[in-house]
């Protein structure tokens, strides 16, 4: 059977599974809708959290990003996993003890202020909406590039599927679907990786293959061979490529860690387990399930760039015969050229492909002697590394079909989690918490379902008409989560001194400073041409890359909250009691 038919069958089967789960796990109460009744086993919650967390970006794009960054790509690996330590030690158990439904609800109660709750809702909506746009785009890419269907059709189908299980089942339906989605994702990610690792290094586990020796040269380690290959082509060595520089790698890693811990759709997953001790462990289970993919990704990255470089450069650099003739390139390159994600340009007209670093003066001098006229790999989209993996490893078509289903599962599972965070903050925080406190539980459940539908429609619209800044939104979402929500959540638990004035001003300072800093370099509201300063080290304030500003925003948030709280009235006694109550699993006060 051809790839397209197989992919359609694979994706179709997964959709049948999701719908079946939706019908079986309908939510009957607001508690079931918001937090799955608080009865999810910690291992199951860990698996659902992993699917919720690992987005289209993790599944489809991350390995490609690391392949081109080399060592410094570790910023994403450490940043997107290290946040779970912060969440498990500093937030999850206490928020679970608090025992309510949403993140803004905790902020509103702890800081005894509906204003604080409303500001938290604004932060949550900005974080989750920017993030959901990227997921919708991921669904579209998976549909158009693998299934060869129009993006619009893919988006509409994806939206209908999410609508069925998220509107019917709320958190309960989403949780059980996410468990199924995790299994599909991890299988689809690991199978091609294991085959490539076996082929290249004779080692089945990619985590060991990356540190292993080459199958055809048992005396040479894969990583040192890769270092040599890339250096010969004028790039830096893979294992110590300076990439973004140590300073910005540090800031980016820390920002992603804090941002991860502050993402409301992930935090709320820890409201679904029965006990506080479960919340502590569940973060660990989540990280195990995430690590199964995150420790394979760097292996895929290194192996893919090694395969790719050595496919194009078939012998010693500079030997005219050692560059792959354009018309002899492998079939998968032809296929991806058709999608426009891979572009070669024969700049020197010799019919062969030269891939090298044409920004390196030493390399350019040599290339001039050889008659090379610039790097002929004009575009290599990050997404190809994972999507083309089965073809690169010459695996049967059903593996490629599985990767398609996995990419869609990754995007849908994250989108569903985000949509739930959005709809519950609208129905529970805005409607019940602020505007209609007397609303009945039944009416609130209906309102939650309606706001879920509206959120899906908005996300779908934004997916169809992407605002042109889809690539930058991830930096923005993590920056905002790090600078606005994480600090006040942490201070709300760890300090009794922080009062409502401190929390509100802290959140606003963190939110606004981070937005302004990103807009300065990426354009105001991401409108092209409105950048105030050049987005390179010459323009960055104190050399800080906008993607790594989240940690600075968080520091400003902490500082502001402390100073303002010190100058205003202390927190009331009953709030100090609330904090003490949250700190202890079985309260004595």
């Amino acid at each position, binding site marked *: 059977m051809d790839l397209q038919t197989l992919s359609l069958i694979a994706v179709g089967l997964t959709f049948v599974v999701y719908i079946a789960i939706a019908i079986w796990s309908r939510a009957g109460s607001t508690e079931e809708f918001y937090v799955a009744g608080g009865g999810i086993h910690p291992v199951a919650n860990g698996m659902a959290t992993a699917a919720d967390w690992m987005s289209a970006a993790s599944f489809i794009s991350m390995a490609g990003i690391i392949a081109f960054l080399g060592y410094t790509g*570790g910023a994403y690996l450490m940043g997107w996993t*290290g946040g779970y*330590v912060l969440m*498990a030690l500093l937030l999850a158990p206490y928020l679970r003890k608090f025992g309510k439904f949403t993140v803004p609800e905790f902020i509103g109660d702890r800081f005894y202020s509906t204003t604080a709750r409303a500001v938290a809702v604004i932060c949550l909506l900005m974080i989750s909406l920017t993030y959901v746009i990227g997921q919708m785009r991921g669904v579209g890419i998976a549909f158009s590039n693998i299934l060869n269907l129009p993006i619009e059709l893919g988006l509409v189908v994806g939206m209908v599927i999410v609508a069925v299980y998220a509107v019917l089942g709320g958190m309960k339906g989403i949780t059980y679907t996410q468990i199924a989605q995790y299994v599909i994702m991890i299988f689809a990610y690991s199978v091609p990786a294991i085959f490539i690792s076996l082929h290249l290094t004779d080692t089945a586990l990619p985590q060991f293959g990356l540190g292993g020796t080459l199958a055809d040269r048992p005396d040479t380690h894969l990583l040192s061979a890769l270092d040599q290959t890339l250096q010969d082509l004028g790039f830096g060595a893979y294992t110590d490529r300076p990439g973004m520089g140590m300073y910005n790698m*540090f800031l980016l890693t820390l920002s992603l860690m804090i941002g991860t811990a502050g993402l409301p759709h992930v935090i709320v997953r820890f409201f679904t387990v029965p006990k506080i001790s479960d919340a502590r462990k569940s973060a660990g289970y989540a990280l195990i399930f995430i690590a199964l993919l995150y420790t394979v990704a760097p292996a895929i990255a290194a192996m893919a760039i090694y395969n790719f470089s050595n496919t194009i450069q078939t012998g010693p650099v500079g030997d005219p015969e050692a560059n792959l003739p354009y018309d002899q390139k492998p079939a998968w390159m032809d296929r991806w050229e058709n999608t426009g994600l891979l572009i070669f340009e024969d700049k020197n007209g010799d019919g062969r492909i030269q891939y090298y670093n044409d920004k390196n003066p030493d390399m350019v001098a040599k290339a001039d002697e050889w008659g090379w006229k610039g790097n002929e790999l004009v575009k290599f989209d990050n997404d190809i590394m994972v999507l083309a993996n089965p073809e690169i490893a010459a695996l049967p078509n059903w593996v490629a079909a599985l990767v398609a289903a996995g990419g869609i599962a990754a995007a849908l599972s994250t989108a569903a989690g985000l949509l739930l965070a959005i709809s519950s903050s609208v129905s529970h925080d805005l409607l019940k918490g602020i505007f209609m406190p007397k609303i009945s539980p039944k009416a609130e459940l209906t309102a939650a379902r309606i706001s879920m539908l509206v959120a899906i429609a908005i996300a779908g619209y934004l997916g169809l008409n992407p605002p042109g800044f889809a690539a930058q939104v991830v930096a923005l979402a993590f920056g905002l989560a790090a600078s606005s929500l994480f600090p006040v959540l942490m201070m709300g638990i760890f300090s009794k001194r922080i009062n409502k004035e401190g929390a509100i001003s802290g959140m606003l300072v963190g939110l606004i400073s981070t937005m302004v800093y990103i807009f300065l370099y990426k354009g105001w509201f991401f409108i092209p041409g409105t950048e105030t300063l050049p987005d390179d080290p010459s323009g960055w304030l104190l050399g800080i890359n906008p993607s790594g500003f989240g940690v600075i925003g968080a520091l400003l948030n902490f500082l502001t909250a402390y100073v303002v709280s010190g100058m205003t009235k202390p927190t009331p006694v009953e709030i100090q009691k609330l904090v003490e109550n949250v700190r202890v699993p*079985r309260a004595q006060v």
Partner: protein
Amino acid sequence: MSAQKKDVGEYWSRNIGIIVPCLVIWALVSLGAGILFAPMLNGIHLGGYPLGFWFAQQGAIYVFILLIFYYAWRMNGLDREFDVNEE
């Protein structure tokens, strides 16, 4: 009441006493070994992995997992010691 209050304070400071060393290790393996000390550590090899590179792309993640389970285990013990564990 006051005895209970003291218990709560004691429980909390013991909790902080577990959190802080965990976070120190958390920072040491990632921001430390994975970034700041990586150039030095890369002289040492773990199989084919330069050590700093290994921490940045593999090792830190494994330590994170161990830290979370270690914290959960210590806190469950602390909950029982102070008789504040859930039924």
